[in-house]
């Protein structure tokens, strides 16, 4: 197995590191913030992006090492497709049960 060229190696490493940092930050937000609606933003965005970046890194790595099938792309797509839905449902649940998450009234309704 021949070694990856430096640039590809660097890109893969950078993608991995970036992905890890985003995921870490997202989880940090989840653990640290004090209010559910704030906490929700971290994982839904940062973690998803973190996964996406590492998946792309993996794709690139296996592309060079002869195992490219594009399957990681599939997972990426899937994660990006489903993360908003999960978040959406979680917010709806939170709005029902969390006092701090009660939304304002719709502008076009009166009483």
């Amino acid at each position, binding site marked *: 197995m021949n070694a990856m060229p430096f640039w590809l190696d660097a890109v893969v490493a950078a993608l991995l590191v970036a992905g890890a*940092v*985003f995921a870490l*930050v*997202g989880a*940090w*937000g989840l653990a*640290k*913030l*004090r*209010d559910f*609606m*704030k906490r*929700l*933003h*971290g994982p*839904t*965005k*940062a973690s*998803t*992006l973190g996964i996406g970046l590492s998946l792309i890194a993996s794709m690139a790595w296996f592309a060079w090492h002869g195992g*490219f*099938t*594009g*399957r990681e*792309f*599939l997972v990426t797509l899937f994660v*990006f*497709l489903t*993360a*908003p*839905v999960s*978040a*959406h449902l979680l*917010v*709806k649940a939170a*709005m029902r049960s969390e006092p701090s998450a009660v*939304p*304002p009234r*719709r*502008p*076009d309704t009166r009483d």
Partner: protein
Amino acid sequence: MRALIPHPVSSLAVAVLWLLLNGLSNGQLVLAVLFALALPRLLPAPAIPSPRLASPIVAAKLVLVVLYDIVKANLEIALRILGPESRIHPLYVWVPLDIASPQGIAVFASIITMTPGTLSCEVSEDRRWLLVHAFHADDAAAVAAEVKSRYEAPLREIFR
């Protein structure tokens, strides 16, 4: 054509998926075509009919915009998360919807969730309003205006 492939989007998705999963080879190509034809047929008709897609160029542009926004928004959020919590000012925004296609609304809501510090929370039952939660914002109207112009407008062109 419609008789052979009643659900073209679905079939295409199956074929692409199959090849992505198994890699490209003659045998897998045959299987991919086979499944692409068979699976959507085996399955019942979807409850919400497939939309007609238009303007692939607009769509491609939108994808790029969204990808850029995702990265940008994440950086922003990451900084705010790492900073003191007291400097985060969340906000609810009701965004009026102009787009009618259910798929379009869904994509709009998804994009909002993935991008700038916003989360889509609820689509009203009449599908005329979208409740958005902003991670950090001061002006509700500005948020609404930005998402409408940046995403809803192109989406209205795509899902006609």
